């Protein structure tokens, strides 16, 4: 795994090689979890009938495995970004859960959804995006303690993105609101707020990078 940690994530052939790691992880998963397989099918079937508790339990049960798969592919990503990808996969499982055929094994389905979304997530992140985000956030809390330069920078940067995203960032990063609460004011649901915030931070990260040059 360490051999992969130092690689950048661009290039189709690298994706392919990295995927072998994931496949190996999935094989281990299949050996480890044969007993629980039937329960997973049962849970997802009930979930698709509208049983929310069963769906929550299903997602909790598969999360550790998905987390391991994501870590196998992206060991050099910070933990919270790995967790972001996990949530993207969970969201996809939710949105596409009706494409699982009742009565068929759930693992091949889950494996395919995860593979698709993980590859997608890494492709979209590319090789450069996971670096600058944290640097920028470190600047922001300084505003309260009166570091004028950082505050001015933050204001200037927030002025460079659209006002909706800016107020979202301001509410969450400067005023300490939760993304859900901030999103509600802007008419966004929790998922949409998270996505919008993520995009805004990404853009701010790019702006910060440009400003440093």
């Amino acid at each position, binding site marked *: 795994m360490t051999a992969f940690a130092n690689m950048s994530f661009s290039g189709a052939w690298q994706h392919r090689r990295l995927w072998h790691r994931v496949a190996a992880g999935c094989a281990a998963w299949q050996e480890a979890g044969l007993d629980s397989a039937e329960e997973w099918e049962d849970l997802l079937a009930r979930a698709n009938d509208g049983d929310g508790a069963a769906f929550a339990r299903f997602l909790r049960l598969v999360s550790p495995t998905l987390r391991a798969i994501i870590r196998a592919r992206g060991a050099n990503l910070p933990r919270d970004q790995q967790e972001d990808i996990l949530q993207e996969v969970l969201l996809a499982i939710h949105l596409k859960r*009706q494409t699982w055929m009742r009565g068929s094994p759930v693992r091949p389905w889950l494996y395919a959804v995860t593979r*698709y979304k993980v590859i997608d997530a890494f492709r979209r992140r590319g090789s450069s995006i996971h670096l600058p985000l944290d640097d920028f956030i470190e600047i922001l809390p300084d505003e309260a303690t009166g570091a004028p330069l950082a505050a001015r920078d933050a204001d200037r940067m927030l002025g460079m993105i659209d006002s909706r995203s800016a107020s979202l960032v301001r509410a969450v990063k400067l005023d300490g609101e939760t993304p859900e609460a901030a999103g509600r004011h802007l008419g966004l649901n929790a998922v949409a707020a998270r996505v919008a915030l*993520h995009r805004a931070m990404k853009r701010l990260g790019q702006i910060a990078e440009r400003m440093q040059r």
Partner: protein
Amino acid sequence: MTQGISTEDFIRQLAASPVPRPMHPALVMLGLLGPSMVALALYFWAYGLRPGLAEALMLPVVTAKLVLPMIVAALAFWLALVSARPGARPAMRWLILPLAIGSVLFAARAAQTAPGGLVSGMLGQTAAACLMSISAMSLGPTAAGILALRRGATTRPGMTGLLLGLASGAVVTAGYALHCPEDSPLFYVIWYGMAIFISGCIGAIAGRIWLRW
């Protein structure tokens, strides 16, 4: 960077969300057949059916003009639906069947034809009209079918699009055969096959754009 909500909260939100709507195969079929029928009806209204349609259909070699595309349509439609579910493996080898039948018809006619007549038989009189008419009429069903397939979750958008394009091209071709007066397999195996293939390529491109999720 702890902008995100915890995965546990996220799971709870997902579990509380309504169950997404499933993919309806009947809707995909309606998407394919509806626009095809409309396009063909307009086409027949504008350009008419072939002369001597009823008598011509008595000949097996002419009936094959309809039946062969129908086989392609049924197979490609079925495979497209299978490929829209993660983890399922569409049995693409079945597409060899219509290809083999077409090749046999072509070879049988070629064997009966004098060497001098082979090329002129293949070129026919209406090749350009055939290609353009079928490709144009297949655009509507391809678009509608892909729209309906967006509820699915193909992990290979290009291939699912290709299969759907083949299906819509083949449906339109079966209808076009009622207009087309060229009855030699030398002509129709080549040009119908080509037209269906073009439609498949359009579907593949459309799938790569609109079937991602």
